[in-house]
């Protein structure tokens, strides 16, 4: 069987090559943004080829030099790209082995490979990959015939390896934001206050005056306004003056109430029910509750940047977006160019955690470059642009209802999920709206195996337990009051937060311990293992009474019902605010490629989830986002970080599944449950601010 990404790029030399003596070229279509994907994929290639890691030259993703693997999203790089590069390398190895056997007059089974050199019955055969490179044609399609090394022969996979990208980063190596090209012009873009706003007046004299004697070029096209200068300082000063002097008609005017998740319920929505038919009336014990998460910012540390040059009919764009080929499609549509004349080159930026301003900054640069051919154009967003104009992670409002039988067993579960779109911002850009270009063709919602409709809002809609009757309905608000798009885990973490907090509520109704209540509904031994393990790590058996101010909570999910098994426990204390004391995690992500890399991702996800849960909410009002500085949008800081312990199951004979998004939902829910335990009262609407804590205690 040929992995799908390899089948879509069906030439082995697109993935692997031996052009330089002693070196191996490895090309994948996934991009690095600090999650360690390229290191993990390189480890798989080195393993399958049996070469040392330091022989690899991992190609920076670029259209025409890299296979097209779409976007780097959904914790799927190791699973999908990993399978493709593994198969490509296994096939390359088989071709080289066959050729070596022919040269040596022996059977392929007699040969082994150590660091690229062939051994025959353990002794050097005097041949390497590079000796044979001229005789083996990798410009051929995969056959699906070659088999992968069995896990018991792995010497790299499963052993922690240092990240390839990290050394540069501690010595100040370049990000896209640092790219400096000869003759480059610095540009800033005046943003529309809402998609319907039209520019009535702009004081160009004031803009030029603010630039302090430096020449400023002003590009105006419909509602798209860009200011260009050789001096970045002048461009920055000019945009400030432009914002002050711009007068807009039809600016957006949002009521502050749309900042709250529950506001979604009053908006026009399309409903998509799924699952078992509605429960018939019964006299079983019924419990219901509503949970909410507000709009969240990606909060990238580095505001987005894009660089573009249009010269001799060809467009070159440098971007830190999540995929070079999807970016090329987007640019082709917006710039009216054939994809063949566009080259998109990935350069690392700060972590994005989904679809932030990175696409927009690249499109901004390209739109300007098309109108100012010749020099490279660099667009640098400001912090307030990133907070103010990136697509947000959508708010969600979730209403849950359940029935328990006479024995306290959970027998019927219903989730009603109001959500904005988690992927709706894909394939669009602010500049496109400003230019008055038609919106992209509506996305056909993909279907999952089994014909299930895919939507970010329904991921982990139902908790990961054996429940006899269960159903959910997504009530999709699209378009919502603001642009929204993918944020780490889409709706999965939010649904897990709501569902796993609700499970604790049901345990209480049933008069059972939350751990025992869960274990009573888990038959899968891999799931049981992580739940029992995290209980042990966190000292669950010594858990005290509720309402003491000290809280211990736990939560579990199987990510997207088919990925990692993961359980998180949290110890914390609450007085006027929540202080995290310790977090624990037990995770089974199948075959682990780079254990340290997986732990780094799991822990990072837990810390980010803690930040969302305790602190984060985008404030909307008037023209749009009001929380445009780090003071308005606080995140968890060093002096608020608890120690974290992670126990990673090494299930090396199982399928590899992703780790980047899987810990957020259980971490959010474990905090929710620990806060409820500490207070003896439950807060359901995120974030858990001082106000919400005071309110919960008063209401109790």
């Amino acid at each position, binding site marked *: 069987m040929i992995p799908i990404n390899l089948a879509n790029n069906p030439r082995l030399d697109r993935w692997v090559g031996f052009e330089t003596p002693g070196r191996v070229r490895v090309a994948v279509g996934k991009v690095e943004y600090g999650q360690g994907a390229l290191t993990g994929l390189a480890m798989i290639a080195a393993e399958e080829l049996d070469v040392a890691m330091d022989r690899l030259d991992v190609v920076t993703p670029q259209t025409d030099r890299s296979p097209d693997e779409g976007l780097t999203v959904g914790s799927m790089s190791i699973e999908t790209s990993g399978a493709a590069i593994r198969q490509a390398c296994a096939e390359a190895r088989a071709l080289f082995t066959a050729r070596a056997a022919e040269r040596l007059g022996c059977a392929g089974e007699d040969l082994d490979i150590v660091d690229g050199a062939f051994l025959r019955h353990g002794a050097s055969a005097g041949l390497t990959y590079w000796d044979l490179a001229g005789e083996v044609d990798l410009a051929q399609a995969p056959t699906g015939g070659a088999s992968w090394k069995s896990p018991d022969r792995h010497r790299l996979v499963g052993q922690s390896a240092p990240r390839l990208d990290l050394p540069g980063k501690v*010595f100040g190596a370049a990000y896209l934001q640092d790219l400096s090209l000869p003759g480059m012009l610095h540009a800033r873009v005046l943003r529309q206050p809402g998609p319907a706003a039209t520019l009535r007046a702009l004081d160009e004299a004031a803009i030029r005056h603010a630039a302090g004697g430096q020449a400023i070029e002003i590009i105006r096209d419909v509602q798209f306004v860009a200011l260009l200068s050789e001096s970045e300082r002048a461009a920055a000063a000019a945009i400030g003056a432009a914002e002050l002097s711009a007068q807009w008609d039809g600016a957006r005017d949002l009521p502050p109430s749309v900042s709250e998740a529950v506001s979604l319920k009053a908006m026009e929505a399309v409903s998509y029910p799924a699952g078992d038919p509605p429960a018939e009336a019964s006299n079983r014990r019924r419990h219901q509750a509503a949970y909410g998460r507000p709009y969240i910012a990606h909060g990238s540390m580095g505001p987005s940047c894009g660089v573009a040059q249009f010269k001799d009919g060809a467009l070159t764009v440098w971007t830190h977006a999540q995929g070079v080929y999807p970016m090329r499609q987007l640019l082709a549509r917006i710039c009216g160019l054939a994809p063949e004349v566009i080259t998109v080159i990935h350069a690392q930026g700060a972590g994005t955690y989904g679809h932030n301003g990175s696409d927009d900054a690249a499109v901004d640069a390209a739109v300007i470059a098309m109108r100012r051919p010749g020099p490279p154009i660099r667009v640098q967003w400001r912090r307030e642009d990133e907070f103010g104009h990136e697509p947000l992670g959508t708010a969600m409002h979730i209403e849950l209802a359940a029935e328990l039988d006479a024995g306290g067993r959970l027998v019927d579960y219903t989730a009603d999920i109001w959500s904005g779109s988690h992927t709706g911002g894909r394939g669009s850009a602010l500049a496109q709206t400003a230019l008055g270009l038609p919106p992209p063709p509506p996305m056909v919602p993909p279907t999952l195996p089994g014909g299930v409709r895919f939507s970010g809002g329904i991921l982990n809609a139902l908790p990961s337990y054996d429940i006899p009757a269960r159903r959910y309905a997504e009530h999709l608000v699209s378009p919502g009051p603001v642009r929204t798009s993918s944020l780490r885990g889409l709706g999965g973490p939010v649904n897990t937060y709501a569902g796993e907090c609700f499970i604790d509520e049901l345990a209480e109704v049933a008069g059972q311990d939350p751990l025992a209540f869960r274990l009573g509904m888990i038959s899968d031994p891999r799931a049981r293992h992580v739940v029992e393990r995290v209980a042990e790590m966190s000292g669950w058996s010594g858990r005290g009474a509720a309402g003491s101010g000290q809280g211990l909570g736990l939560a579990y999910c199987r990510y997207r019902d088919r990925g990692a098994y993961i359980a998180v426990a949290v110890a914390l204390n609450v007085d006027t605010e929540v202080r995290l004391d310790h977090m624990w995690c037990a995770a089974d992500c199948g075959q682990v490629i780079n254990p340290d890399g997986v732990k780094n991702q799991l822990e990072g996800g837990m810390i980010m989830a803690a930040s969302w849960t305790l602190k984060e909410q985008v404030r909307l009002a008037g023209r749009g986002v009001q929380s445009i500085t780090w003071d308005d949008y606080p995140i968890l800081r060093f*002096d608020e970080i608890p120690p974290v312990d992670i126990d990673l199951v090494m299930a090396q004979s199982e399928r590899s599944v992703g780790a980047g998004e899987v810990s957020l939902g259980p971490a959010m829910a474990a905090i929710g449950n620990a806060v409820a335990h500490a207070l003896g009262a439950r807060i359901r609407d995120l974030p858990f601010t001082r106000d919400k804590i005071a309110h919960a205690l008063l209401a109790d």
Partner: protein
Amino acid sequence: MLREITLSINGQARRLSFEDTASLLDVLRTELELKGARFGCGAGQCGACAVLVDGEDKASCQLEVGNLEGKAITTLEGIGTPERPHPLQTAFLDLQAGQCGYCLSGIIVGAKALLDRNPDPTRAEIAQALAWHLCRCGAHNRILAAVALAAERMRAEAGA
């Protein structure tokens, strides 16, 4: 008004023609091609642009070059290089303390300021010193451990 300004950067005197009000971050990045200090917020709220000024951990986006004559400025590039890494940089790599890495320049600068005045800080003291530096990836625990490891190695080195 342009003016001749002499700044001491990474131990070298650099003569520049700049307005007094230009931010140190702009001058480092555009004029001196020292890109270790990152642009993060432009408001002194994130720490990505931190440099040492007379040994103190400061947001370079908030400093005007006209006020910096006679002060010793050290950027990430002045702390260590791949050939001669500072123990902090070695410890960050040994513990894989980072993800996207955008915050690391400023954090390493902040940690250097701390260790220069307190060679044996507790976890809480490190966290306190770095509290104004933001990290979005959640690499905090590894960073705290890396600073402690560097401190331990530097003390052993000094005692040897």
